[in-house]
């Protein structure tokens, strides 16, 4: 199945976007959790605060479905 991960900031360089400047297309086997997907593509634990898909907040145990566009939110840099 194919999903799209989006991010900016510090995370974007890790994500290596290929669709547009923010988005990377990722093919995954089965129905892994977001956490498993991130591990697979080499984004370290802790750099994603939470995710946002379909207008809703998702925690890292969320299992994306086919075609999901998932925004990865890096933690606050401190105001």
């Amino acid at each position: 199945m194919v999903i799209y991960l989006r991010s900016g900031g510090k995370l974007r360089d890790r994500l290596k976007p290929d669709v547009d400047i923010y988005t990377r297309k990722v093919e995954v086997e089965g129905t892994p959790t977001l956490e498993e997907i991130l591990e697979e593509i080499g984004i370290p634990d802790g750099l994603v605060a939470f995710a946002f898909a379909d207008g809703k907040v998702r925690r890292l145990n969320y299992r994306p479905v086919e075609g999901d566009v998932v925004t990865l939110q890096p933690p606050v840099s401190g105001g």
Partner: protein
Amino acid sequence: MDGFGGTTLRINLSTEEIERTPTDPEFARSWLGARGFVSKILYDEVPRDADPLGVDNLFIVTTGVLTGSFCPVGSKVGFGCISPATNGHADSSMGGHLGPELRYAGYDLIVMEGIAAGPTYLYIDDDTIELRPAGDYWGMGSLELEKRMKKDLGDDFQIATIGPSGENGIVFSCITHDFGRQAGRCGVGAVMGSKKLKAIAVRGTKSLPVHDLDSMYKLTYDIIQRTKTHPNMAPWQKYGTAFFVGWSNERGCFPTKNFQETYHKDWEKIDGERLVEDCLVSDKACFGCWMNCGKYTRARIPGKPDTYQEGPEYETIALVGGSCAFTDINHVAYANHLLDDIGMDTMSGGSTVAFAMECYQRGIITKDDLEGHELRWGNIDDFEHFVRMIAARRGIGDIFARGTKGAAEALGRGTIDFASQAKGMEFSGYDTRWYPAQLLSYCTCDIGAHHSKSWTITTDIELGRDTIEGKAEVVIYLQHIRPLFDTWSCCRLFWGELDVTPEEHVDSIKHLTGWDVTLEECMRVSERVWNLNRAHFIERNGGPGRKFDVAPARHLDEPIPGGPAEGKVVGRENFEAMLDDYYANRGWDEDGNPTREILDDLGIGYAADNLEKLGFLGKPIPGGIPKVRGRELKPKAM
């Protein structure tokens, strides 16, 4: 002068003399604004033995070069003075609309000295400047007073106020504006109160002169369009900073029960999602900001009147919510309102109450000290009663009015070990025991333990949380780049969260002022400020500098008892090794004293002369100081 209001005001509150001078272009270029202006003026003008709450301290209200311009986002205003919490340089900034309004009235900088004969407020309506009596306002809460003054003067005045806390010299008093934006830290509200200055009201109707408006317009217009579709925009707009409560808990750095623990098992009851679902009234932005991180909320607690407030933001949720162990977001929001109105920084205020709660838990203070009340974790009534004791300096409240360090010194019995503070200022809302670079950041910070100058939680994650290797250099880099935003007086979040580059901010300055300025030049200003503040601190408090860069025992010795960071602690050896590394990379000697070479290099050789007279000039470093101080962590450090 393009990019500036043009006028600097000097006000002697004792004699009521008001002097207007054109803002000095050379001074402006050398120090860039807000934090930079404050640093230089305090260093040059405040006697080293001045009592922070006495007649000789200055109280400075200042804009920065970008304030009020069309850029991402010139909303900030800075306040400066010698801090009653640290006895060193203090700069504290806030967003909202006051800074831009000052610029539109034609002012860049206001330096106030002396003490007014009675309660006073500063009234500025373009060219009209008056010191007006504020007897009627004295004693009022900050929020209550802003409402009243808007009624008295009109909605188009921007107003900053202090509450009873500032009037009574509580060292963590803040300045409030726009019903919920605060210059929270360093006790700037206490200094304002010591001057008998209850409020500042400003209306400005003039235009800000811009060197090249077309270029400024195009640059920012394009940034707006680009960042509107940025992936992080929508989540930020929806939740603001409050969403990071979950993240921080899962990383084991969420202050819980006065930093005894770092994971709050009920965090889901006080996080951003709860805030937005249960309490949100409206989204609120600072002047010129399209990312609106402010959440204006209503707290509902049965048996208490509903309260309206901006926030709580992450820091408040951490230091009031987590550290005092609340389990209901309404209680955190209510506490936020209470502290805002009474005029206390929610960070140091929350931390000080949490510290007192631990003292109560340990039996160091008892009901007898609390007018018969208790001080239980997570109890809003106990919290409120104790905050009011502090604000009025009743009984033991008088001790806690000095902050955790001052209170610990008065209480003795080893309480200093669990006062999470550095140089007299309480930690921000991140535990450091698994985050050594954050501990180094707090303990070396020039204003006391504040994350605004260096925040490294993700740096620690990237470089490894169990190592200290390479941390000091990154901290130094962050201590230069992050305070730059407090100097330019623009919001840091567009850089940290939305990929607006520092170079783009510098382009804004170029278009605004016509200066041929570079990021490198700005970074040098920032480093100059850091070193000048260090020299100033030593001159005021005696050296060697290392003596003050101390970490609380809890963060050095006491392993985290449970949660995701169970067993972690920094350790004294590691901490001292980080300090050695830090000083070496700064061009300071191993005692933490700046060397002549670094001070000369930064163009502040006069500080070396002063340190030398006191015997605290750093010994020359064999082989010289490092050519470049600080290292940016790639990919982009946050």
